[in-house]
């Protein structure tokens, strides 16, 4: 009888050992994966699904990276602070040049880059529908906002006049000069980063951030007119 109890006690103990090890191992594993998936400042290629869906869809094959003709895209490696193996780009290094045939999204075998979201009503590809991020200006350091003549970012934008435009303001310091301040309209900005790439300051003073990071939300209960930033500047002031 005592024999049997001893075997049983042993078995229960072994089982508990196994379960504990599995649980502890699983917790560390889950912790690492969770942490690695949280990298917030990652810019995805055109047509990428929302980040949580993207991470559950992208198989990390790099076919998008292979087919990008400008070497814009990279696959995250350990140490890149990007969910490991997923495609991303850093516009200050190489921006997205918004290829009309969108080869990156066309190459994706999983649908993590959703070509349909980049197709207009006529069924034509329309890369201007990509929303990789949104450009944000650091007005404290942007030299145009400090009164110098610069419109590098505005001129670099393929959607000049829609996604970014120059807001002409009176320079209060001199009282007689104009300031040509770049303003971004998030409704049109694709997040390609051509502006960030072109910015002349030492560190870019216009940078692309993921839309979830940079944009807020007013809430459903506001009944707002559609945003219209385009300043109405009298002709003679330009």
């Amino acid at each position, binding site marked *: 009888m005592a024999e049997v109890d001893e075997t049983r006690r042993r078995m229960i103990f072994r089982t508990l050992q196994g379960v504990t090890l599995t649980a502890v191992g699983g917790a560390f594993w889950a912790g690492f994966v969770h942490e690695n998936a949280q990298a917030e400042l990652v810019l995805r290629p055109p047509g990428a699904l929302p980040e949580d869906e993207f991470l559950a869809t992208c198989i990390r094959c790099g076919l998008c990276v292979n087919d990008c003709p400008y070497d814009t895209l990279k696959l995250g490696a350990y140490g*890149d602070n990007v969910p*490991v193996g997923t495609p991303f780009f850093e516009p200050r290094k190489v921006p997205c040049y918004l290829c009309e045939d969108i080869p990156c999204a066309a190459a994706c075998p999983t649908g993590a880059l959703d070509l349909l979201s980049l197709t207009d009503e006529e069924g034509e590809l329309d890369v201007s529908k990509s929303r990789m991020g949104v450009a944000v200006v650091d007005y404290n350091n942007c030299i145009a906002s400090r009164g110098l003549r610069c419109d590098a970012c505005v001129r670099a934008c393929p959607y000049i006049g829609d996604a970014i435009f120059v807001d002409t303001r009176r320079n209060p310091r001199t009282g007689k000069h104009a300031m040509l301040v770049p303003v971004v309209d998030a409704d049109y900005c694709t997040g390609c980063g051509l502006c960030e790439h072109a910015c002349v300051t030492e560190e870019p003073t216009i940078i692309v951030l993921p839309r979830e990071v940079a944009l807020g939300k007013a809430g459903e209960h506001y009944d707002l007119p559609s945003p219209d930033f385009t300043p109405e500047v009298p002709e003679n002031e330009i």
Partner: protein
Amino acid sequence: MRSKLRFVYAHYRFLILRRALQLGILLLFFGANAWGWNLLAGDLSSSRILGKVPLADPLAVLQLLLAGGVLAGEVLVGALLVLIAYALIGRAFCAWVCPVNLITDLAEWTRKLLGFREPPLMYLNRKLRYVVLAMVLVLSLALSLPVFEFVSPISAAARGVAFGMGMGWALLLAIFLFDLFVVRHGYCGHICPLGAFYSLISRFRRVRVRHVKDNCTLCGLCFNACPEPHVLSLVGKHDGTVNIPECTNCFRCVEVCDDDALFVSLSGGWSK
């Protein structure tokens, strides 16, 4: 010279082919990214042959599906093709394709070179890999993320060669050292969930190692060469095929056997 060639052929023909295939695949992945080659582009998670035929890692696809990913048909077809292939040829991925096998075999080779016979630093059960596989599936479902893809040394190696290694080398070095000093055949023989997955689907494989008992001299060379020696339990006992699923079909046992007791058998099935 002739006899030397014959010796190499007799003892290393499969090993040479395996290394050529393993390295060739990595070279094609690298060339696809660096020079725009088209023969095989992508990495071991998913790839395309000649820009047309899709291939995909079925375990990666399974994780994504459990994570709730709505996958496009192409990658599902790719996973199915690979699944069918390995169902027919067994766990050959491990011996013929996987880049980690290069590392763990190097650790084993180093062990033999240095004459390590020390007992393992810790005890691991060879069934542990099935627990790890179960954890992969459960955690992928729970976290809505493909959890093995975040830590897989297999992806890290193949992706690293093609797209840049980053700190991934540390993971690979850790596996080398683990296999060298901690547990013999540690990673591939005890832990890897992908090896476990391919073992599970290899039950009805058509390619097996066949043993002829009467030729066997019980020299033990096959046991020494095999990364999963428990699958050779029939050797010296009875005729038949190696049916235990963890066999990687590397055919090292066949080429090291000097007594015509082990063969590659294409008929498969549960022959006597």
